[in-house]
């Protein structure tokens, strides 16, 4: 029997294909068209923190150093009001085998694939995650395919993504490279069907459980080095797994007072599926093009229920500009002797400003770094920007215009953060929940679920749903 490989036919088979490729039956966690048992899913389909630590220990993942950025802290204190300027620490996740925190995420999926007897793993990702899956698969002797969105229609590739493709190939993975478009998912489904490999999705309970060790370790390390808990943990945010896993790990370490602050590079105005906009951005992850949509509707990923649910965990969400991130990348290299990739330094740009809001005896943690290399480097990315008609200059970062102008700050005192209104995101989340499920009437359980899922009060949820014309149950 040959299956129909047309776009429509394959998309119509997506649920079947996914069920086999994920090895998780999500239906057992469903409670209603709106609600599902999130913690039940995390407990049943994932692994415990202890198991994850053991799995990661087998392949050299985790236990990365926590480094104090003494010179960067001293600089922040020169700019801060007297008594302000928290100690800044950075978790050097670039020390993981493939050079980013994504190894934590890949380690559990690849372990699981091996245990369940899958012949290989596939991941759809243009980011560091591809290299992480490829590296873990190499260690466990599994085949690996990485599907990337790389080119615009002229065939011009984003240098950062081209480099990540090279790294996947270095670990023995097959890399399938595509031009811009969400139909990548169609190619991904075809490959899953053809190979019978496990979908090593970024968004399964395995992936998120893998990141919990990052939050857990950093809490332990900060306590050991400073004798206190961090006041803030600053997290580069895109699809939401980094925020979710880190925050869950902090909670498991009993580190409940640390504020979890998500940070994305502001790419507002650029369309993520636009051929013309594709090479007008100088960051391919950690930006608002993922950070906002994935916060306001997590269930847009390649799994029926996304285990990354950032609104549950964000205490604050801020943006920074591309120029500010390139600036702190230079700062980190020149003042601390740490040459690291720009995308991972997104949270450092914010932490530099946030440290100045906090007291000197407090601690702020930048929870990751990533490796750097050809293509994935400020000079490569700024050269590419210039060649694509983007203006690059020194000045006030507030003059930054995504896709048109990158402004490298003229002075470190100009670095700042712009707060995203979380209530606004909660309202979008609720609107998406209603629109995407088509639900017109909700139960009390639905309201409790929605309140938890966007971390709002039940009153807030009731009010928003009423505005959307949804029929509500009686109070009580």
């Amino acid at each position, binding site marked *: 029997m040959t299956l129909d490989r047309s*776009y429509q036919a394959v998309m119509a088979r997506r649920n079947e294909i996914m069920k086999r490729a994920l090895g998780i039956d999500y239906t057992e966690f469903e409670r209603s068209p709106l609600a599902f048992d999130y913690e039940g899913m995390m407990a049943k389909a994932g692994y415990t923190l202890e198991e994850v630590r053991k799995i990661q220990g087998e392949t050299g993942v985790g236990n990365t150093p926590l480094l104090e950025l003494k010179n960067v802290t001293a600089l922040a204190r020169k700019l801060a009001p007297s008594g302000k300027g928290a100690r800044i620490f950075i978790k050097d996740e670039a020390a993981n085998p493939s050079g980013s925190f994504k190894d934590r995420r890949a380690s559990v999926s690849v372990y699981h694939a091996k245990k369940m007897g899958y012949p*290989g793993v596939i991941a759809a990702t243009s980011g560091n995650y591809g290299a992480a899956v490829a590296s873990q698969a190499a260690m466990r002797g599994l085949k690996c395919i990485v599907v990337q969105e790389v080119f615009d*229609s002229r065939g011009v590739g984003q240098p950062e993504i*081209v480099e990540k493709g090279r790294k996947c190939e270095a670990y023995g993975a*097959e*890399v399938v490279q595509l031009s811009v478009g969400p139909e990548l998912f169609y190619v991904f489904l075809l490959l899953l069907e053809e*190979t019978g490999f496990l979908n090593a999705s970024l968004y399964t309970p395995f992936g998120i459980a893998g990141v919990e060790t990052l939050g857990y370790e950093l809490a332990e390390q900060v306590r050991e080095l400073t004798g206190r808990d961090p006041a803030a943990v600053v997290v580069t945010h895109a699809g939401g797994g980094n925020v979710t896993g880190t925050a869950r790990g902090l909670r498991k370490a009993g580190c409940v007072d640390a504020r979890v602050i998500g940070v994305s590079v502001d790419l507002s105005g650029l*369309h993520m599926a636009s051929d013309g906009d594709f090479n007008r951005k100088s960051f391919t992850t950690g930006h608002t093009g993922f950070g906002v949509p994935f916060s306001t509707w997590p269930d847009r990923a390649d799994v029926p229920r996304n285990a990354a649910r950032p609104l549950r965990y964000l205490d604050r969400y801020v943006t920074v500009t591309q120029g500010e991130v390139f600036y702190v990348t230079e700062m980190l290299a020149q003042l601390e002797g740490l040459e690291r990739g720009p995308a991972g330094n997104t949270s450092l740009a914010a932490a530099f400003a946030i440290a100045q809001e906090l007291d000197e005896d407090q601690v702020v943690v930048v929870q990751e770094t990533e490796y750097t290399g050809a293509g994935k480097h400020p000079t490569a990315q700024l050269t590419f920007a210039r060649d694509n008609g983007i203006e690059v200059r020194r000045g006030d970062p507030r003059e930054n215009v995504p896709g048109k102008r990158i402004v490298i700050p003229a002075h*470190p005192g100009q670095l700042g953060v712009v707060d995203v209104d979380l209530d606004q995101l909660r309202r979008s989340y609720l609107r998406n929940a209603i629109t995407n499920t088509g639900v017109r009437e909700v139960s009390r359980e639905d309201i409790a679920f929605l309140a938890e899922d966007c971390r709002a009060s039940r009153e807030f949820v009731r009010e928003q749903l009423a505005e959307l014309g949804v029929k509500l149950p009686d109070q009580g």
Partner: protein
Amino acid sequence: MQEGKAGDWVQIRSIVLPPGQRAPQVPDDTQAVPLFMLVKGFLQHAARIGEEATITTVIGRRVTGELVAVNPTYDHDYGRPVPELLSIGPELRRMLWGEEAAE
């Protein structure tokens, strides 16, 4: 190189979706261009650039498409020096440790 022989490391290209048959949600500029795919592997038979070719990938998959490169090279690099970045190090050292530190 215009021609590959069996066993050469090559790259092939194929159209996944032609213009007009893209997913409905993509913006107009994307709708107007094809979705294409590039894959690398070992050539199964002699072929010229532009001809149809079958490859075996590193994990043993067989894929067919138009031959676009023999020995495809990585062309990403560190780019050109960026003057806007070059001055940042000395500026910051001066702020922290004074004039001598920056010289």
